[in-house]
C-alpha cells in the first residue's frame, strides 16, 4: 500500500498527485486498479500520461512469475549445504544446514541448544573458513567454551603434527583466526534485534567486506527470549512484531543465501501435558526444519553429556528420526 508521491516515477508530478487525491486515489493500488478513462475525465489529465505512469508503476511494484526450471537452476547454483561438525546432526538435517532457509533448534532448559549453536559456529568458522554472525539475546555466549571446542576440533585434525612445534603454532593461529571470523552482537530486546538485522542487511547489500566478510551463517540464540515479553494479554502488537521479525529473517536468508539458525524454548499446556514448542502456531510456519533436543534422563539428578535430537519438521526427510548427540 504505497502512497503516491511525486518522483515515484517520471511523469508523476505534484499537481497530478493533488488532482488524483482530490478524487480519492491515494495509493499505487488505487491507481492501478481504477479505470483510467474515468480518471482522465474526472481529473482532466491526459489519458496517455496516465497510461505511461501506470506502465512504470506496474513494472516497479509487481512481482514477476518465474518458471520452475529457472528457479531450480538458480537454486542449484546459489544454495550451499553447510556441515554442522556433528555427523549425527548432519544426518538429521540431510547432510547439513541449507542456505536460504531458517532452521530451528528447540529444547527444554539445559538440553544443549546453546552448546549445539556454539559447535556449529566453531565448525563453520574453522572448517569452512566462513564468517558467522551470532546474535545473543540470553547472555549465554561463552567465548571460553567456544575456544575449547575450537581447540578440540583442531586437535582432531592435526593429531600427529603435535610433535612439530611449527605446526602447533599453526593450530593456535588457526584458532585465533576462527575466533575473529565469528562476530557476536548482544541484543536484549526486539527493537535492538530488528536494528541489528537491518544493519546486517545494509552491510550485505553494500557489500562492505571489511567486517562482515563472506557471511554464510546467522545464529540467533534465542528468539523466544525477545518475543515472550510481548506476547499474551489482549494486545496483538507482539504478534505483529514477531511476524516482522520472521519476514526479516526469511528474506535475509533467501536474498543473501544465508543459513539462519534460531533456538526456541518449549512449554507445556498444563503441568503434566506434553512439551510443545514455544511461540505458538504462527511461528511454527516460519522455520522449514525443526529439531527437538532432549536430555536422556527424565530427572535432573544424573549428569550426562548425551542428548537425543529428533526431527520434528523437515521438507526433505521423514519426521521422527532420532540421533544421539554428544555435547561434551
Amino acid at each position: 500500500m504505497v502512497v503516491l508521491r511525486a518522483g515515484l516515477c517520471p511523469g508523476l508530478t505534484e499537481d497530478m498527485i493533488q488532482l488524483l487525491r482530490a478524487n480519492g486515489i491515494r495509493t499505487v493500488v488505487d491507481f492501478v486498479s481504477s479505470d483510467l478513462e474515468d480518471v482522465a475525465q474526472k481529473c482532466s489529465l491526459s489519458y496517455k500520461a496516465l497510461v505511461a505512469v501506470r506502465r512504470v508503476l506496474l513494472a516497479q511494484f509487481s512481482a514477476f512469475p518465474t518458471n520452475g526450471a529457472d528457479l531450480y537452476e538458480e537454486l542449484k547454483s546459489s544454495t550451499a549445504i553447510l556441515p554442522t561438525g556433528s555427523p549425527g546432526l548432519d544426518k538429521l538435517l540431510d547432510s547439513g544446514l541449507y542456505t536460504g532457509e531458517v532452521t530451528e533448534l528447540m529444547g527444554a532448559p539445559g538440553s544443549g541448544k546453546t552448546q549445539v549453536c556454539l559447535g556449529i559456529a566453531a565448525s563453520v568458522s574453522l572448517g569452512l573458513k566462513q564468517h558467522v554472525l551470532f546474535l545473543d539475546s540470553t547472555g549465554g555466549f561463552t567465548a571460553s567454551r567456544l575456544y575449547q571446542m575450537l581447540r578440540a576440533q583442531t586437535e582432531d585434525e592435526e593429531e600427529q603434527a603435535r610433535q612439530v612445534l611449527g605446526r602447533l603454532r599453526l593450530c593456535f593461529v588457526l584458532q585465533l583466526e576462527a575466533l575473529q571470523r565469528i562476530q557476536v552482537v548482544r541484543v536484549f530486546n526486539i527493537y535492538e534485534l530488528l536494528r541489528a538485522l537491518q544493519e546486517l542487511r545494509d552491510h550485505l547489500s553494500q557489500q562492505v567486506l571489511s567486517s562482515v566478510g563472506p557471511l554464510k551463517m546467522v545464529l540467533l540464540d534465542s528468539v523466544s527470549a525477545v518475543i515472550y515479553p510481548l506476547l499474551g494479554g489482549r494486545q496483538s502488537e507482539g504478534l505483529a512484531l514477531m511476524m516482522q521479525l520472521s519476514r526479516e529473517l526469511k528474506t535475509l536468508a533467501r536474498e543473501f543465501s544465508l543459513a539462519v539458525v534460531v533456538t526456541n524454548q518449549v512449554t507445556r499446556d498444563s503441568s503434566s501435558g506434553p512439551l510443545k514448542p514455544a511461540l505458538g502456531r504462527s511461528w511454527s510456519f516460519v522455520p522449514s526444519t525443526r529439531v527437538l533436543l532432549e536430555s536422556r534422563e527424565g530427572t535432573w539428578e544424573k549428569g550426562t553429556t548425551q542428548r537425543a535430537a529428533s526431527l520434528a519438521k523437515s521438507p526433505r526427510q521423514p519426521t521422527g528420526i532420532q540421533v544421539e548427540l554428544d555435547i561434551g
Partner: protein
Amino acid sequence: MQREVGTLPLAPALRARLAAAGFQTAQELLDTGPCGLSKEIGISREEALEVLQVVRQECHGDAARTAGGSGATRKCTALELLEEEQSQGFIITFCSALDNILGGGVQLTKITEICGAPGVGKTQLCMQLAVDVQIPECFGGVAGEAVFIDTEGSFMVDRVADIAAACVQHCHLIAEAQQEEDLRKALETFSLENILSHIYYFRCRDYTELLAQVYLLPEFLSEHSKVRLVVIDGIAFPFRHDFEDLSLRTRLLNGLAQQLIIIANDHKSAVVLTNQMTTRIGQSQSTLVPALGESWGHAATVRLIFHWDNSQRLATLYKSPSQKESTIAYHITSHGFRDVQPPAVTHSTEGTEPNPRKRPRTEEEKQ
C-alpha cells in the same frame, strides 16, 4: 534507511495509523517532514516531531552507539570476548568444590539461579556471596559492592555479621602466612563495618515493587559503579500467589529476565536469583522441579539446584554454558558456606550449627 515502519519502537495506535496512511519505510517518514506527517495522519505537530525524533534516533543512532557507548548492540568478535572473559574475575563462595564445578565461582555478567527446597541454604549462600564480592583483589576477589533485594524477609543482619567476621579473620590468616605488604594494607579497609556498609538492602513486598525496583536499578548502579553483585532473594515468592492471569505472569517474568540480563551485561555484575521448588505430578511419580514454570527455566544462564540426600546437603549444576553437569556436597557452618570436611575428621556430621531460623532436619520428619 529502508527500515520498515512496523519495526520502529512507536506506540501501536500510531503504528496502525501510519500503516493505514500508506507509509512503509522510515525514509518516507523523514522525507515527509513534521507538517506533512501531522496532516496525513491527523496528529498534532508536536507528536509528529516526536515521531520523527524517534525515527532519526533509530536510523542514525547506530553510528553514535558503535563509537563506544554502553549500547547493547555493541558488536565484537569472539576473540575480543575471549580476552574480556579471561580477565574477568569470579565471586568465590568459600566452598572450593562448588567453585570448581562453577568454573571458578559465580561468574560476572551472567544470571545464576539457585533453586532448592526450604531450609537447604539458598539465603545462606546469597549472604555469603554478598560478603565475598567485597574481598579485595589481592586476595583473589573482585572488590565490589552488593545490592540485596529481599522479597521474603529472610535477610538477617546478625548472620551476615557472623559471616563477614569469619571472612575477615580468614583474610587475616592468609596475610599473616604470606607476610606481604599490600595484603596488610588491603586489610585496613576490609573490616566488618566496611563490609556491612557496602551491602545495599532493598525490601520489596509484592511483584509491582519488585518490578519497579528492577527498572530503577540501572540508575542506582550508574551512581554506585562499584557494585558487582545483585541478589534477588526470592523471585518466586511474589509471583506465586495472587496471580490469576498466568500469561501475564509469563510476560512479566520474561520482561524481568531481559531487564536483568541487560543490567548484568552493562554493569559487568553478577545477578543471583533464588527460586522455590514445586511438585510436578506425572503418571506414576511426582518429582520436585523448580517453580515458575518451563519458560522461566530459560531466563537464567546458570542453574544450581540444592537438595538433600539423607542429611547431607548437595548442590547440582544443572545448566551452564561452559561447565559439565555435576553434583557436590557442601556444609553450612557458623562461619557460613563451607566445604564438607573430609571423613577423617570425626565431628564433621555433627558440626553443623543449627541455623536458629530454620527447623532442624531430623529422622522422623524425613517421611
